[in-house]
């Protein structure tokens, strides 16, 4: 039990003043602007938007600045902010097939229609620290393909669609239009949870937690034999059917990363074997997150495929109950708040137990009893 305490207002106020001072750091160093954070620490911004479950680059940058770069604290701030705004409604589902692609790779087919596009990636870099970035940098302008190559760009079907044509992969589940879509921000999560709710939970789940779980499936704790069918990054249009307007209003574009994981087979006496799938989708350029999400999504489908649920990544109650870093940090960090009343009762109890122990010992050994007194 946590009991509120009174007093300490002055100390708390001074602690916050000190925090603001520390946040600013050496005043002779120029202060960070939100634009600098959003432009130059863009992947941190993407992570805060994804796990804060709030697409707004400027707010995420503000949260990162306020949190002194502590991303979980920043995610907490983003979540708290979203609770202050009314919700106008839900968008039409974004169409990732119509994305303006900035990166698109497949580890399963080297010759895919539309080609493999590396885009802005850390892949194939040498992971050597670059001393030239220690000062100011003036990178070369990006290379541009001649305009014909760019405008003649072939359409880019999803790799899973290509496999789907031959029935080699299971189709995506399709519910009736208008069927209710689970929303864990409105209804508390119950188990078993359907895949829509699981994906919502994973989308806002902690990247490190999902990374570790995804990794555990690769190491044999709930193996799924995954291949990256496709990862794509780019901009998609968001549309919102506003009742008073009478049509789907284009709200603008957001950046998302999508991962299609292709996994080993299912089949039955009545159905031929086919590949199965795991799906990941995240705001911004969040490749590790969307890959981990896709691995865990597939692992959590164990029940659906009649696999034994033996590994942590397959246990939906375990995964979904512990994926949220705001909840997790809240419960872990509340331990440092005053628990004086709790602890007083624990102290009382342990003194009583020790007294009883000493008494029991004394009955066996009167000398010890004397020593105890």
């Amino acid at each position, binding site marked *: 039990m946590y009991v509120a305490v009174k007093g300490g207002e002055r100390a708390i106020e001074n602690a916050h003043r000190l925090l603001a001072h520390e946040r600013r750091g050496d005043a002779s160093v120029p202060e960070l602007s939100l634009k600098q954070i959003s432009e130059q620490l863009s992947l941190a911004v993407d992570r805060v938007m*994804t796990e804060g*479950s*709030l697409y*707004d680059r*400027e*707010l995420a940058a503000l949260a990162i600045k306020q949190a002194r770069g502590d991303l979980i604290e920043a995610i907490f701030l983003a979540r708290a902010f*979203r609770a202050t*705004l*009314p*919700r*106008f*409604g839900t*968008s039409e*589902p*974004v169409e*990732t097939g119509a994305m*303006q692609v*900035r*990166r698109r790779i497949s580890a399963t087919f080297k010759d895919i229609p539309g080609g*493999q*596009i*590396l*885009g802005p990636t850390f892949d194939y870099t040498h992971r050597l620290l670059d001393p030239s970035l220690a000062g100011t940098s003036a990178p070369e302008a*990006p*290379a*541009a*393909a*001649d*305009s014909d190559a*760019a*405008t003649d*760009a072939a359409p880019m079907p*999803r790799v899973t*669609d290509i496999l789907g044509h031959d029935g080699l992969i299971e189709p*995506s589940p*399709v*519910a009736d239009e208008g069927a209710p*879509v*689970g929303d864990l*921000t409105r209804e508390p999560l119950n188990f078993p949870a359907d895949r*829509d709710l699981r*994906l*919502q939970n994973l*989308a*806002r789940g902690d990247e490190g937690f999902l990374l570790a779980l995804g990794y555990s499936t690769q190491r044999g704790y709930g193996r799924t034999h995954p291949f990256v069918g496709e990862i794509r990054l780019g901009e998609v*249009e968001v549309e*919102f059917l506003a009742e*008073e*307007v009478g*049509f*789907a*209003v284009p*709200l*603008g*574009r*957001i950046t*998302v990363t999508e991962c299609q994981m292709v996994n080993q087979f299912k089949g039955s006496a009545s159905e031929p074997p086919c590949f199965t799938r795991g*799906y990941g*989708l995240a*705001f911004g350029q969040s490749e590790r997150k969307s890959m981990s999400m896709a691995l865990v999504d597939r692992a959590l489908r164990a029940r659906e495929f009649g696999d034994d649920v033996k590994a942590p990544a397959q246990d939906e109650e375990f995964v979904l109950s512990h994926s949220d870093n705001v909840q997790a940090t809240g419960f872990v960090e509340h331990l440092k708040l005053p628990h004086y009343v709790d602890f007083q009762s624990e102290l009382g109890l342990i003194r009583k137990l020790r007294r009883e122990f000493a008494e029991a010992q004394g009955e066996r050994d009167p000398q010890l009893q004397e020593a105890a007194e």
Partner: protein
Amino acid sequence: MTAAGATNDEITTLRRRAMAVLADSCLDDIAEHMSVLTVPPYQELRAPENGLVMVRGRIGGDGSPFNLGEATVTRAAVKLAGGEVGFAYVLGRDPHKAKLIAVCDAMIQSADCAHVLDAVVQPLERAMAARRQQQDAETAATRVNFFTLVRGEG
């Protein structure tokens, strides 16, 4: 072109096109292009208001919908003297941008339609297309061909 001769579907198509272009443009560019228009008097039906829209994805990219996460959205509505009601719903929290979009949307439904298209929508649309083309060109320069190397003696 004026709104008078257009069918409802044509007007809806125009309004959606304008909204997509304006949403993709920054406030300063919209304001600059609108500065050549004579904006008629209008009544503010809904002052710009910040809120959220839950963004949905589809399972597997093409399956049933699921809730991905929310995005900030600003909405506004204005009414012209002629009765045309213009709306804005746009990503972000910029009240001025939402207001200008609502005004453009109302004017597109009025006799000023051609002016808005000429002075605002089309130039911004060209700028948007140029930005996207530049991005596509930079993206295309990173297109790669992977070769499979056969090991051992063929």
